[in-house]
C-alpha cells in the first residue's frame, strides 16, 4: 500500500521553483532516506507531505487524503526537525505528559529510559538544552509517539558521533518493534545507509532516483585502467566523472549502459570497483564537469 503518492507535484515560492513535476510513491512501513544537497527541495516536499504548505500544482496524497491542514493525516504523522518548539513554561517531563495525552501509541516508559540513557535532565526546559541535547530530545519525542508516518528531518544535527550511532540503532530497533514509515534526511548518508531500505534522491527540485539501496549503489561503477583500453568503452557509455593521469584513466560510468562483461574488462587490464552510496549521490547530483580541482587551474 502506498502511504504517500505525489503526482506531478510542483511548488514555487515567488519566482523560485522549489519542486518541479515530482511524481513518486512511497510504500508503507519502510525506512526511506531522502537525500539531496542543501536547497535541493527536500524540506519543501516534506512540508507538503506534512500538510504545512500547499502545492502550486499537482497533487500529494498521504494515507489517501490531501494532507493540507488535515487533522486526520496530522493525527497519524509526526514531523521532527530542529525547529520543533515547546513553550518555555514546560519542563521536559511536562512535554512528555502532553505527548502521551495527544498520541495514542505513545511509549512513556521508553521515553524515560532513552532520555535517561542520553543523560537529559527531565526538569530542564526545552529552550535550555544544547543543540545536541535538543536534537536528542526531539528524536526521542518522534520515536516514542509511534506515528504511522514519522518524518525525521536532519534528526542527528548537532549530536556527537557516539550518540548518533546509538540513535541510528534506536531508530532501527523501534522500527523493528513497531514497523512504520520513516522518512529520514541527513547529511551523513554513510552513517545511516545500513538501516535504510530505499533512497529517494532529490536534486534541483526533481526526484532523480528512487530505488532500493543496493540497486541505487549499483547504478554507477568505477573503472580504471590504461587510457587506450578505456577510450572506446567510454565513448559508448555515459560518463559521470573522469580523471586521466600518466596514461591511466579512471572513470565513473552508468552501469546500465555498460554492455561488457566483467571478465572481458579484466582481460583488458581494467579494474572495476564499486562505489559507496554517498559517492553515487555525489556523482548523480554534481553538475557537468563540476570539480573542485577545476577552480584551481
Amino acid at each position, binding site marked *: 500500500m502506498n502511504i504517500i503518492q505525489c503526482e506531478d507535484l510542483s511548488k514555487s515560492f515567488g519566482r523560485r521553483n522549489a519542486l518541479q513535476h515530482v511524481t513518486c510513491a512511497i510504500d508503507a512501513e519502510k525506512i526511506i532516506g531522502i537525500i539531496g544537497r542543501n536547497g535541493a527541495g527536500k524540506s519543501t516536499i516534506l512540508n507538503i507531505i506534512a500538510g504545512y504548505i500547499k502545492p502550486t500544482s499537482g497533487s500529494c496524497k498521504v494515507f489517501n487524503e490531501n494532507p493540507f491542514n488535515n487533522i486526520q493525516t496530522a493525527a497519524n504523522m509526526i514531523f521532527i526537525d530542529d525547529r520543533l518548539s515547546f513553550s518555555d513554561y514546560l519542563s521536559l517531563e511536562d512535554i512528555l505528559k502532553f505527548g502521551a495525552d495527544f498520541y495514542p501509541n505513545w511509549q512513556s516508559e521508553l521515553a524515560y529510559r532513552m532520555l535517561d540513557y542520553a543523560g537529559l535532565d527531565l526538569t530542564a526546559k526545552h529552550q535550555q538544552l544544547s543543540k545536541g541535547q535538543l536534537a536528542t530530545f526531539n528524536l526521542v519525542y518522534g520515536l516514542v509517539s509511534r506515528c504511522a508516518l514519522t518524518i525525521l528531518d536532519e534528526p542527528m544535527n548537532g549530536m556527537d558521533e557516539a550518540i548518533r550511532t546509538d540513535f541510528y*540503532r534506536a531508530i*532501527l530497533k523501534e522500527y*523493528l518493534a513497531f514497523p512504520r514509515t520513516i522518512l529520514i534526511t541527513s547529511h551523513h548518508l*554513510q552513517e545511516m545507509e*545500513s538501516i535504510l*531500505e530505499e533512497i529517494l534522491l532529490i536534486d534541483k527540485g526533481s526526484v532523480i532516483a528512487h530505488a532500493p*539501496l*543496493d540497486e541505487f549503489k549499483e547504478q554507477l561503477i568505477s573503472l580504471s585502467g590504461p587510457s587506450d583500453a578505456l577510450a572506446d568503452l567510454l565513448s559508448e557509455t555515459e560518463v559521470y566523472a573522469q580523471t586521466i593521469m600518466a596514461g591511466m584513466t579512471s572513470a565513473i560510468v552508468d552501469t546500465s549502459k555498460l554492455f561488457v562483461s566483467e571478465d572481458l574488462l*579484466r582481460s583488458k587490464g581494467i579494474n572495476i*570497483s564499486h562505489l559507496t552510496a554517498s559517492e553515487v549521490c555525489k556523482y548523480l547530483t554534481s553538475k557537468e564537469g563540476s570539480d573542485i580541482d577545476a577552480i584551481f587551474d
Partner: protein
Amino acid sequence: MHVHLDSTTPIYIQIAEWLQHEIIADRLQANEKVYSQYQLAELFNINPATAGKGLTILLDEQLLYKKRGLGMFVATDAKERILTKRKNEILTKMAQELVLEAKRLLVSDDELLVLIRKTQEGLK
C-alpha cells in the same frame, strides 16, 4: 556479535556470505533453523528488507528451505554444496589469471598446455 560491513559490497551479499560461512564452520547445522530477517537486522544493525534479500539468495540457491509458518532451515547438503561451489570458483579464477599472465608474457597456448601437463606429471 560484531561483524564489520564494508561499504562498497552490497550488504545483502555480505549477509549471504556470512551465512554461508556460518554453515561451513558448522555453527549452522543441516536442518537447523536459520536467523529470521529481523534477527539478522538486529545483529548487523541493518534494514530487515536487506537481511531478507540475503536470505533469498541462499533460498534461490537451495541452500536453505522454507517451512510454512516456521521459518527457514539449512538444507541437508548445504555445506558440501557451498564447499564445491567455492572450490570451483577459486579454481576458475586461478585458471583465468594463469591464462591472462601467459598472454602478457607472450607464452603461446601450446606452450601453456605443455607447462600444465609437465606440472601435473611432476606432482605425480
